[in-house]
């Protein structure tokens, strides 16, 4: 399995990662190697096997009641944001 440079650039775009030219060459090589390595899975006979949905058989994701359980702490939480105004997170203009 060998990935091309445009393919890796497209994956980086999907993953919203800005990567440098130097990084790109490294990733073309290492991602190709990783995909070749995991290729051995195709030899496993999984004809009637279900995909695993949960590591504990019989368990599933619990749902909680749709009730308010948290108090408003937006000032505390937003203290970690780079740009906030009037309790809103600021980003570059998206609507002209």
């Amino acid at each position: 399995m060998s990935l091309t440079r445009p393919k890796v650039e497209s994956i980086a775009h999907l993953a919203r990662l800005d990567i440098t030219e130097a990084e790109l060459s490294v990733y073309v090589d290492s991602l190709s190697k990783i995909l070749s390595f995991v290729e051995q899975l195709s030899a496993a006979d999984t004809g009637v096997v279900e995909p695993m949905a949960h590591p504990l058989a019989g368990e599933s994701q619990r749902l909680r009641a749709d009730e308010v359980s948290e108090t408003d702490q937006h000032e505390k939480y937003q203290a970690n944001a780079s740009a906030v105004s009037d309790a809103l997170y600021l980003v570059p203009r998206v609507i002209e």
Partner: protein
Amino acid sequence: MSLHTLSVADLSAGLARKDYSSAELTQHFLDRISSSNPALNGFITITAERALGEARAADQAIAAGTAGVLTGIPIAHKDIFCADGVRTTCGSRMLDNFISPYDATVVERLGAAGTVMLGKTNMDEFAMGSSNETSWYGPVRNPWDHAKVPGGSSGGSAAVVAARLAPVATGTDTGGSIRQPAALVGISGIKPTYGRVSRYGMIAFASSLDQAGIMAPSAEDCALFLSAIAGFDPRDSTSVDRPVPNYAAELNTPVKGLRIGIVKEFFERGMDGATGTLVNAVLDQYRALGAELVEVSCPNLPLSVPTYYVVAPAECSSNLSRFDGVRFGHRCENPKDLMDLYKRSRGEGFGSEVKRRIMTGAYVLSAGYYDAYYLKAQKVRNLIAADFKAAFEKVDLLIGPTSPTPAFDLGAKVDDPITMYLNDIYTIGANLAGLPAMSIPCGFDGHLPVGVQLIGPHFGESRLLSAAHAYQGVTDFHRRIPAAYV
């Protein structure tokens, strides 16, 4: 007195007898950290003031007679666990400026139990690595030999416990991140059953695999702390509502008659000679203790590593999408538009291995590839889990090596991801199947420690710990301390 050489049980008894206060005990460890951490690099953040405050509160509880067994015992937390008001970096530039606004359940429960937080330990970035070399804060040294890695991803926790800069530490294990570093530094480490310990406030890597656990010199120390962190938490949707045993009270369950399965596939592949000799000696030791050793086969186990390197990156690419430069974490300078903000914040904030895994995950989940990679891996995962299930119909525990080799040189594998990934060849299976597993020290290859791994059935932590405790009753490898840190 060498307080740092005492077990948790002995420290607890000493505090209760008022041989020393928690403040004195805490200061003793803080002094050791001050003198040794600059070279070891096991801590990212040291919370000395907070620790001394918690120690004074513990001393008051001891004086008032309201103390529990863990009250006043210092602990180090892997820097993946959020602690209210404390910087929580996950070993990443992305979170270099992140002050957690709340406590992880593990931190909260250990705080409620009266433990004293010494600081936050170094780790591979976002827990992705097996050598602690992917940390933004630099590699951790192995206390047995500073030219060697301590393993990873919980390499800081492993190193500070091995160097006795903390009596115990928390860790997390997605593919071996508690057990492999425990083995490489000569301590004990337990990864509980998936769902046994709450992951609320533990920064997510691969959510179908991640589990929190304990790293300490002995199985007894691990048992005391596991009882405090295990149990149901409504804030983690994967937390299992099941009673928590008193693991310490069950430590003396005899090994006589215990059926231990020697996993054939573990002994056929990859292990170096000295490790093999030491692990085989453990089998003899268990026979001498009255256990019955039988060979079992898990034929799909050799597919563990490729299965993991589809499932874990896929889940990581999803989990790490939350780091967008907007709500918290690193934000690039002068973004020209929203896309530029996302891409440069993430490109600058994440290190090379994290980016590699995010891209691997994005690829295997992308249109046209999902069935061939992710779905296929989740099917193989069920084959591996079925192998373990069949084995546990014949035996009570499984045994094998923890790591194919002892600690390797810093820099030796960092440029070759596949070679690095193969460090986890023996540990990943337990994560894929959600099983509890632990590593305990079983000897030395030259000057470097070697670990042996025990794997139990779901919720079999008590059996794992008592089997490890029995072995540690007739050996002293877990008490050895690197000469530079005595």
